[in-house]
């Protein structure tokens, strides 16, 4: 009846129990608060069923921040373990638990934190920046989000019911095959990613079309803000790369469920095929995450230097070049697999070529500041932190792009330090800059600047403390993912300093939460009444803060880059405004239902509860049919008079 699921699945030892209880506590607190303040209906109508991309964007970011906490706790446990597990002392985590933790850490940070922040910011800002009222497919957008949320639910339920994968964040076979990982862990990994991944693919297509088809009249591609360009490039990567992930995961699932042999060691299977497929997705994925961060910095630097972006055309071509190149470098993740020298040097050289357009971008940012009036606000601090850490990460990346040098650094902690250099110093710093920068546009008030600076300095110092020792350890020959090591190696103090670094970062995270609380409390003092708190340049600053649900009462006409800045400089007085009826999508709970069915399907397959899996599958198909054949229509009208009244009030 319940497949492999038994009561035993709930019993995972005391450390996991603490995790379970804190998760349960969190959920109960939220439920109690919603009930006490009678906010259930509000939550359902204003948020959960909303098709407004600004609401969906906020929900993405909420999930990303929750996962940041979980992934952060995992990081703290890993470094805590490594700080003490020397010689005969094997620390407080056994090998299997330690391996589950780093597998979960990588999976959550990439798929749920980085992707969540990215899709969150894209939802919030892209429609506003191109002068649109919505995305191309608002309902699909909600489905995407809820699939992402059900992947999130599946990965969290694995903490309570059963175990998580211990095969690393990319689950290389044959380790991830039935022979070596018979439990439910790898299945949880597969299905959480599969469901969230389909959501990402749909979202990628949605924003690709949104940017191509829904720009305000007059806005040519070459007039778009750089953030939109970066999203366009990133989403085209999503559209091409995510199908590869879907297929790779599906084949691995077939191996595990039906006993097939795509990637097994024997019976004609070939694990190398999986490693190629997963990186053919995985390398573009890195650029999917970093390109929007580049876009954010392009906006931030121009705004806070009060100057036009330097070398716009170069910036666009650099983005396009990186987009293209990111598809032909995947093999540099496994130079050590034994390919011939011709193959290895080709991929090595392609990899180092990426440094050229990336370098061009850095120079253009620097010269955007040149002869500007630089305001060192928090987003600018994140930018400066990014330039320094990301450049160092780029350097270590170029070092590892030379295959023989990589042979000595691959799988070592040097490699771990390198990619955290790119992901934290590049992606995370970029998205944090974006969060602070666009916060007033979403909520109508600015975040507390003083605490924001403390957050930044904690992250920066924590980052240096956590990862410079890892570079050093790598050069000492320390490999990644070790739950214990010999005392004679002399590594312990470096691991301890790395753990101190994690403590700084965690303190930075807590300060960030404090910043949110204080900012809400003092919101009256930081209210943005103009809609343009930073003296911005792009269209989103031309509408009120928080942006109204229809974004623009009148769709703006665009004649140049930096459309809003140009309008401000020309001091054009708005003439008599002619309002028109606005058509907007109705709320829909169908996305939630579809995602709930997908969750049911995933959970059932993990535990081999086949009747339930079938029910989930039928559920998805039926719900989609109901939705597409809904005769009542999916839009409602806000009449010109209503808009006029709403605008007059604000």
């Amino acid at each position, binding site marked *: 009846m319940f497949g492999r699921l038994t009561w035993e699945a709930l019993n995972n030892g005391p450390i996991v129990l603490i995790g379970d209880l804190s998760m349960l506590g969190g959920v109960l607190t939220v439920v109690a608060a919603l009930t006490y303040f009678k906010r259930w209906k509000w939550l359902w109508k204003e948020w959960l069923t909303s098709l407004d991309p600004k609401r969906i964007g906020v929900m993405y970011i909420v999930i990303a921040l929750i996962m940041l906490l979980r992934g952060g706790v995992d990081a703290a446990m890993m470094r805590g373990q490594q700080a003490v597990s020397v010689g005969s002392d094997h620390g407080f985590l056994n090998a299997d638990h330690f391996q589950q933790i780093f597998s979960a850490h990588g999976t959550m940070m990439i798929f749920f934190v980085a992707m969540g922040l990215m899709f969150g910011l894209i939802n919030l800002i892209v429609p506003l920046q191109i002068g649109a009222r919505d995305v191309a497919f608002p309902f699909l957008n909600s489905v995407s989000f809820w699939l992402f949320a059900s992947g999130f639910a599946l990965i969290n339920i694995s903490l309570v019911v059963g175990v998580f994968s211990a095969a690393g964040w990319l689950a290389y076979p044959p380790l991830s095959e039935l022979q070596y990982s018979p439990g439910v862990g790898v299945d949880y990994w597969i299905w959480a990613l599969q469901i969230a991944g389909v959501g990402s693919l749909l979202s990628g297509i949605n924003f690709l079309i949104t940017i191509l088809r829904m720009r305000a009249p007059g806005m040519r591609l070459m007039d778009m803000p750089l953030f939109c360009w970066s999203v366009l490039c990133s989403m085209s990567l999503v559209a091409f790369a995510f199908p590869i992930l879907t297929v790779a995961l599906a084949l691995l699932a077939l191996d595990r469920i039906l006993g097939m042999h795509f990637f097994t060691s024997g019976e004609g299977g070939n694990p190398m095929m999986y490693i190629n497929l997963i990186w053919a997705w995985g390398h573009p994925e890195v650029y999917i995450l970093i390109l929007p961060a580049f876009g954010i910095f392009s906006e931030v630097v121009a705004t806070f230097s009060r100057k036009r972006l330097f*070398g716009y055309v170069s910036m666009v071509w650099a983005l396009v070049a990186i987009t293209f190149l990111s598809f032909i470098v995947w093999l540099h993740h496994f130079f050590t697999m034994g390919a011939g020298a011709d193959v290895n040097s080709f991929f090595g050289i392609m990899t*180092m070529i990426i440094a050229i357009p990336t*370098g061009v971008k850095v120079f253009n940012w620097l010269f955007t500041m040149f002869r500007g009036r630089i305001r060192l606000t928090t987003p600018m601090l994140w930018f400066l932190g990014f330039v320094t850490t990301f450049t160092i990460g780029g350097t270590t990346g170029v070092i590892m792009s030379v295959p023989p040098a990589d042979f000595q650094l691959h799988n070592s902690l040097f490699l771990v330090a390198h990619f955290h250099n790119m992901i934290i110093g590049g992606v995370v710093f970029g998205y944090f800059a974006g969060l602070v920068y666009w916060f007033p546009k979403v909520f109508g008030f600015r975040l507390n600047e003083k605490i924001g600076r403390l957050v930044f300095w904690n992250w920066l110092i924590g980052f240096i403390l956590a990862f410079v020792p890892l570079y050093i350890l790598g050069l000492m020959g320390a490999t990644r*993912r070790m739950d214990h090591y010999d005392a004679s190696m002399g590594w312990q103090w470096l691991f301890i300093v790395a753990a101190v670094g994690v403590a700084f970062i965690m303190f930075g995270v807590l300060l960030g939460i404090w910043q949110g609380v204080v900012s809400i409390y003092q919101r009256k003092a930081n209210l943005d009444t103009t809609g343009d708190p930073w003296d911005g340049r792009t269209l989103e600053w031309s509408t009120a803060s928080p942006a109204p649900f229809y974004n623009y009462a009148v769709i703006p006409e665009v004649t140049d880059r930096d459309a809003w800045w140009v309008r401000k400089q020309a001091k054009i007085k708005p003439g008599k405004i002619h309002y028109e009826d606005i058509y907007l999508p109705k709320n829909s709970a169908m996305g939630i239902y579809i995602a709930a069915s997908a969750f049911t399907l995933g959970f059932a397959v993990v535990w081999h509860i086949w009747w339930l899996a079938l029910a989930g599958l039928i559920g998805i198909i039926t719900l989609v049919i109901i939705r597409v054949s809904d005769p009542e229509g999916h839009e409602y009208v806000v009449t010109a008079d209503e808009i006029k009244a709403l605008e007059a009030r604000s």
Partner: protein
Amino acid sequence: MSSLRKAGRPRLWWLLAIPVVLIGGALMAAQGHSFDVLQPAGQVGDKERSLLLLVTILAAAIVIPVFALTAAIVWRYREGNSKSKYSPELDGNVFAEFTWWVIPLVIITVLAVIAWNSTHSLDPNKRLVSANKTMTIQVVALEWRWLFIYPEQGVASLNYVNIPANTPIDFEITADAPMNSFWIPKLGGQIYAMPGMTTHLNLVADKIGTYRGSSANLSGDGFAGMDFDANSMGQDAFDLWAKAAKKLPASLSTDEYLSISKPSKDKHTTAYASVSADLYDRVVMKYMMPGMELK
């Protein structure tokens, strides 16, 4: 904007002293321990280190000016400095942009040539040039032990490997376990050990000594403890060891192999006087053909 300025700018850059002190301290504590990658004991590791340093210097030639430029620009064009020039419409300069497309291009071209040549000269498949004849050692990664077979001597060792110094070694590597990576950092870079396949890693030790070998790729529960000693010794000492091993009671029969290839975190070292015929090849082939399982 005034409220922003009033919010105060806590000057916190001095906090950067914390990492300098702590990391400096940890480095002091690591003194006397080996920086394997930077202190190689073989010519392959030596060349790989030189390559690493060369690329670092080339990259620093761009990175350091960028840092200096960033600091200079941020300081000079800060909002408070009303003496600096302000050109809000300045958005490009053909000469400048040409420069920063071309300079990185030149550096990367140089790097590309270096990469191409070094990848070919340091191809792990390639036998090393030496006055001494290359010796073959077969390596099998197990769960979670390393088995070394010396076909020329007809002996085998478990969880340690002995090699004669100054004799190039061609390691033939496979796995009878999840994929692993065979890495002796003091001697040179690593290569994957994969079931059903053979990879080659050509290394040589220039000095006598004991070097740490590691399992560099996650391969399951016992992976962290799966390290071994690589003992580089004089040719005489090596011959003596091989001769002594021949007289040991234990031999690596197929049964013994099946017993040591069962998952175990036990790391005892041992040697075998003889090895069942074609054992290495049979371990590789068992994955390639149905019905070829070891019995």
